């Protein structure tokens, strides 16, 4: 007669394998959708489509790879970013680009898309800042479509145009492209990840919500 313990272990193993397979295939289906969507639109997406904060001719570029639902990104936004803007970006020494790597949940993707819909109306950085200022817990609905539209309204954006942009998934391919670039080209496996690069191609990589002192040292060494 079969051992009940062995049967129980077997059942648990089968359930675990099934759960992993289902989760993995649901995760991978996001990428399938991306490729299909990109092919359908038939346009080339490049990183040059990404908005830049600061002078286009700055010596150093800070590439921030982030997710709008990431608490560590908010910590960096609240505590370090402003000093960098005042001392390096407003002085023309550096500029900043934000590369979306939305992986925490579905709302991360919507939030990233919303920033590009806001960009259509010239409010990318204002919307970007609002998202971090209003960030709550991961996947608790603070970045659902209704809340994203409310943020757009509060910023004075044309909500009809914004909603149309969101509903048509106009920037889904763009976000999927940056997500793929972030993990393949920039080898990011957490957020926030920063690549600081100067015009001669020398780069410094910073992973996590480091204090301002780390950025000061890295930026000064690259200027």
């Amino acid at each position: 007669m079969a051992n009940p313990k062995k049967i129980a272990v077997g059942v648990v193993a089968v359930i675990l394998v099934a759960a992993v397979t289902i989760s993995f295939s649901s995760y991978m289906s996001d990428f399938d959708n991306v490729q299909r969507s990109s092919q359908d639109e038939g346009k080339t997406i490049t990183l040059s489509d990404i908005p830049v904060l600061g002078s286009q001719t700055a010596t150093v570029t800070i590439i921030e790879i982030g997710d709008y639902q990431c608490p560590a990104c908010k910590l960096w936004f609240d505590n370090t970013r402003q000093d960098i803007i005042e001392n390096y970006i407003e002085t023309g020494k550096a500029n900043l680009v934000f590369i979306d790597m939305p992986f925490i949940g579905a709302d991360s993707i919507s939030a990233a898309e919303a920033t590009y819909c806001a960009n259509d109306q010239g409010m990318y950085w204002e919307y970007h800042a609002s998202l971090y200022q209003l960030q709550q817990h991961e996947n608790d609905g603070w970045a659902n479509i209704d809340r994203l539209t409310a943020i757009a309204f509060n910023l004075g954006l044309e909500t009809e145009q914004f909603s149309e942009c969101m509903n048509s998934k106009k920037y889904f391919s763009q976000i999927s492209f940056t997500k793929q670039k972030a993990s393949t080209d920039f080898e990011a496996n957490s957020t926030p990840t920063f690549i600081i690069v100067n015009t001669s191609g020398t780069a410094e990589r910073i992973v996590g919500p480091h204090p301002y002192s780390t950025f000061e040292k890295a930026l000064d060494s690259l200027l």
Partner: protein
Amino acid sequence: MNNTFGTVYSNPSYILIAIGIFFLLFFPLITISEFLFFEPFIAFSIYPETILSFLLIVILSFFSALAVSMNIYRVKLIKKTKKIGSSIIGTIIGASAGACSCGPIAFSIITTFGTAGSIASSFLSVYEIPIRLTSIGILGIVIFVTTKSLSRECKINP
């Protein structure tokens, strides 16, 4: 109770064990929770929003050090290992919380397990403080019970 602490830590090797366990837990936890960074420069940062989280790591490490070292003493004294398991469980529960949901560990979990991984990672991040408090509570009970048991058993077997 003071007498029991005095008895255990009158032996310097138990002080060393406690210090060792404290740092063995403290440094990995502050690194995983992104208080301490090693690259590109060594940096340590506590932001106003993360002070509570940092204090809980200090308390958790301290309680784990006390609970485990006292139980090692107890095991050597009366050859019973039951409570050391409870202190390890308390430590593991506390350590599992607070690994940032956007850090490399969470990224691996989410990319491997998809939605289920995302939910698990969010849970550990959102309930970081209650989980750590539960863990500290478990360790506090272990320390209390161990102290009581040591004072009783030491009287019987001086």
